[in-house]
């Protein structure tokens, strides 16, 4: 068990806030030691696999939180049937692979958090983040590593640069590395998702990582 993680509300730039008043990014910093998941976490994944049935996967889009992210995907020009929302991607992978396969403690923690709450959780190497984390619109002429960003694209950024396309690629070196010692866990809030779900998602991810230590 861990204490409630200290949550910080990231900035949302004015353009985005005017368009999506309920959009937000909540994050917390936790210590991490990236490695193979311990048996307890793998056992949790196995139990979660057994509980996650096909019927649940089919009706997922009717549940309030997964539906809220599908709607947000539509609002920002993503077809959620083409690029799946994180929870739907997890469900699809469960059906395809026959279970939740363990990758490493960080990925497993993010998976469990999203699975239990429906809220997508992102992780960044704390050492690669400079300043406050937030959501903004790319002004154009900006790039994510070698990937050029188009004007108007929604990105997760720190005070200096774009770290990731929202629900997309992460800039090289910004994700959690094997050498990372601290990481930022960030939950994306959209309209229809209660604040408590975001907090719970971050808590589950932080707890899974800390329990593994």
């Amino acid at each position, binding site marked *: 068990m861990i204490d409630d993680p200290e949550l910080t509300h990231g900035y949302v730039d004015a353009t*985005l806030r005017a368009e999506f008043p309920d959009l937000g990014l909540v994050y917390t910093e936790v210590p991490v030691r990236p490695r193979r998941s311990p048996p307890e976490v793998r056992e949790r994944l196995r139990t979660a696999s057994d509980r996650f049935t096909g019927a649940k996967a089919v009706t997922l889009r009717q549940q309030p939180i997964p539906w809220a992210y599908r709607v947000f995907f539509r609002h920002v020009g993503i077809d959620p049937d083409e690029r799946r929302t994180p929870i739907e991607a997890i469900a699809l992978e469960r059906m395809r692979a026959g279970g939740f*396969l363990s990758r490493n403690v960080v990925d497993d923690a993010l998976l469990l958090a999203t699975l239990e709450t429906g809220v997508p959780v992102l992780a960044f190497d704390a050492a690669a983040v400079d300043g406050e984390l937030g959501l903004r619109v790319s002004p154009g002429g900006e790039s994510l590593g070698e990937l050029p960003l188009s004007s108007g694209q*929604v990105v997760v950024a720190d005070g200096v640069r774009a770290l990731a396309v929202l629900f997309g690629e992460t800039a090289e070196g910004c994700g959690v590395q094997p050498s990372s010692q601290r990481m930022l866990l960030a939950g994306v809030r959209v309209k229809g998702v209660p604040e408590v779900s975001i907090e719970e998602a971050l808590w589950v991810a932080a707890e899974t990582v800390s329990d593994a230590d």
Partner: protein
Amino acid sequence: MAEVLDARVAPQVVDDLAIRRQLREQVARLEGELGALFCSTYPRTGFDWNVGSRGGPRMLSLKELEEVRDELAAKLQHNRRVLGDRTYVEELHRRRIEEMLLEPERHKFVRVRNEDIGERGCKQWHVLPRYGLIGMLMNWWRVKISSGCPLAGGLGPPLPSDG
């Protein structure tokens, strides 16, 4: 008419944000209805759920939001119609199963599968003669209900070890 042409009349100020908000609400409602329809259609296949992506995540223009809304509405209407047609045919098949059970001799060799009535699985109702050729000559017919899908070939390869 004179009033319309009067240049002194101030043009109406259009609240762009309000229009966009309304469009987003319409998109949300349509997405909810499409999700409910998706669940209703399961396990049927052959429906098209894709509404073109707009290269997101990015801020969509008013025109793009309208396009998303219109495409969702069109997709919803189309899929509802397809589902309506399918359920009508499925109902006919269900009725046929009842008729087969009541009077098998009037439906010789007819076979109705689970997928014909919109259900999953391999169950089927097949009208066959009792005792083969003798049954055919004597007009003894019965409905044979299959017991389900054939058993899997084996356990298959083990999952990658994570222990």
